[in-house]
């Protein structure tokens, strides 16, 4: 079954619980120069008297024709046939940053020391075993979810609320 990450923007408060859960899941060590795979943002726009705020949580979008995958000269990135996630094996990574430059969301990240690429793998092993991705599971407001492609189509048809779809590149 193919999956889509969906952020219900109306529910997100940019608390970063998802980012921390991801760091816990993936043993991210900020002190050792690791970059987190997921991050939350508050964006403030508009006049001082009446500013507009946007709250977001962003990680890899697991794009369908993933530009990162196409850009990588050593074939580190590939699509997981079962889930549709953009997964990777960085054994052969030469640290050229081609994937990151190709990615519209600058998601592939590079550890300061090893220089090798890492990124969100959709918590693919968890999902394959019927568990939720760590970031989805933790969200205190149910803003993040992982839905199957068919559920996603249904959602887009019936739900008028603004959602940041992880299929932005479709």
């Amino acid at each position: 079954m193919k999956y889509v990450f969906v952020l219900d923007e109306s529910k997100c408060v940019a608390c970063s619980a998802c980012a921390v859960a991801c760091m816990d899941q993936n043993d991210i060590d900020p002190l050792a120069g690791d970059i987190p795979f997921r991050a939350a943002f508050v964006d403030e726009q508009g006049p001082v008297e009446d500013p507009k705020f946007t709250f977001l949580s962003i990680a890899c979008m697991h794009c369908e024709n993933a530009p990162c995958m196409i850009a990588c000269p050593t074939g580190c990135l590939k699509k997981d046939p079962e889930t549709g996630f953009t997964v990777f094996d960085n054994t052969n990574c030469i640290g050229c940053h081609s994937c990151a430059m190709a990615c519209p969301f600058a998601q592939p990240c590079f550890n300061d020391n090893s220089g090798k690429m890492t990124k969100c793998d959709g918590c693919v092993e968890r999902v394959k075993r019927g568990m939720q991705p760590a970031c989805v599971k933790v969200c205190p407001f149910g803003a993040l979810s992982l839905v199957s492609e068919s559920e996603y189509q249904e959602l887009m048809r019936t739900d008028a609320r603004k959602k940041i779809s992880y299929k932005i590149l479709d």
Partner: protein
Amino acid sequence: MTELERLQKAKIPCPETGIEIRHTVCDICTPGPQCGIDAFIKDGKVIKVEGTDGFPTNDGVLCTKGAASRQYIYREDRLKTPMKRAGARGEGRFEPISWEDAMAVCAEELNKVKANHGPEAVTFLCGYSKWFRPWLQRLAYSFGSPNYITESSTCHTAEVMSYTSLFGTYSMPDLRNAKMIMSWGSNGVINSYPMGRAVLAMKAQGGKLVVIDPRRTHLAVKYADLYLQPKIGSDAAIAHAMAKIMIEEERYDKAFVDKYCYGFEKYANYVSHFSLSRAEEISGVPAGDIRKALDMFLETDPSTVLPGNGLTHRINGYNIHRAILSLMALSGRYDRPGTMMPARKTLCESDAGFDSLEHDFYMSRWPQNARPRVGSERFPLWTKLLHDRQGQGMDLIRHMEEGTPYPLKAMVCFGVNDRMYLESPRFLAGLDRMDFVVATDIFHTDVINHADIVLPASTSFERSEVKCYMGQFLYYTRPAISPVHDNKDDVEIITLLANALDLDDDLLRSGYDKTVQHMLSTSGIEDWEAVKNSPLPVRAPNAKRYIPGTQLREGFKTPTGKIELSCSVLEEIGRPDLDPLPIHKSSDDDADPAKYPFVLMSGARIPNAVHSRTHNVPWLRSLRPNPSVDINPADAERLGIKQGDTVRIVSTVSSITVKANISSISNVGDVNMFHGYKEANINSIIPVDHLDPYTGFPGYKQLRCRIEKVEDRP
């Protein structure tokens, strides 16, 4: 990667990986939610956490802080072994010592102080966490000292006083059944997400939300149907204008007020001076918006205000809080579902639906003939109103410095944080005046550096404890892991102290399980092991749901037996500076506005921190690495300050240097700064006597200051 490697990397709990799930609770923010945690354990170590599915408070989710539990329990700066001081006080040089020797020193020193200066000279001081409070209180009283003090002297007790003076008991808005909520100075989605979720659930069911907050909070910008942004400290004027309309337009609940309220006439006469235009002038909120908010509140039933704790952090904070609660009385919104409800507690401020022996557990040991406890003469309302007889810790610095009415000579500290005290360095200097200081903590804090004996405490993951939930449930954890270092849990430490001191108190000396089961012997539970074995909280046989209206029927536990719009305890105290009515008064200090044009607000929550407890957790600190002050874009532009610039916040007593965060979360003219940073401790610049005279609470959220741009040296 092999299949096993993949499983291991993904931390999948199964026999192949040897990863197993054990249940515990998060004790980072404490004692409210204490969310259920699934600890993923491999070889005796926590390798990951998740929320426990089906748990009453969190049902599988966690907040930002709780999600970082693994780094919290394995923090580098955890205390690893008992220690005794090797250098000068404050120097931070220690040498290890055995638990046995540490206890012997404590017993000898504390008993020496008791013999020479009386038991009152020993203060028992409690910070975070809070799960062991009844035990520490009993330890103090059994030792003979009335000086049991907690950091609730700065946090929660002022609210309790406000509720108690009106309703005779602590109360809480019934968010789950309310159809309209007026959230007043509370950003629930960030400061306590279960509360935030309740507010959002109300909205999702079509309810309306009014937010009144000087900060443009998440709740305000994202969910409010109507948002009022008052000047800091002007809230009572808004509440009084609402009350005036209700009374003059006969929209208050006359029958309710006649039957249940005391002091209505005096109160009505007082609020009659607050016209909408006067309230607009004081608060800066358009009169029309105040009326609209009131209309929304009155036109929906049930509706409730949700008053934030921070309201009490102004030097007229007690009155502000009372002024807001008075609206609940006036509108007859008390003790009905969806309004303000009397709160009960079973253990450690949380409720399992039955009365326990907790209060009796410590009060039965109250030292009858002891000299007055700290702060009791300076803050008579505190002393008269509170049932549990804590001292008011905001008088500690004065008491330590002046030694009046009697000298303090020793301090027993549990999780104490100097940065909660105004002009904090004076608190540490006060510790250095003591003959003896013993400090227990999970982490190596500033206070630790000023102690003679240091005792390492456990986190919730390493101990067994009982926790109550939502008026129905009771949970009894087992340790999820063995102690990470040579540490013990706080109650074990209290038990060791009680034994070393050879106190005449067999119950306290018998340890946690026996004492907690004694306090909860009214639960009807016989088989405590079965409770410990349950993966989820259980219902005690004697737990009863509260029947709304009981309080109205039985009468209020105030001196007049009624809801007091004019506080009879204050009438009796009769001090001219303490008005029985919830008066509006400026909470400004006397600093010259020309020199100190900004109003500083400190302490409002950010998602990744609670006090100073998580500033040293790398995951959490990485989310907002620099201590920073929120400055409105208009002010920033005027002062030529850009995002990330270095600025100095200057008060009449001191200054700190931080980064600028340009955001309209702060109103024009206000700045907002989170507290508890070692390198930028905002409370160190608040004058030590900037206190609410009624409650003794610090005016954390309203102080005149100046913002200066600091030129970064190249």
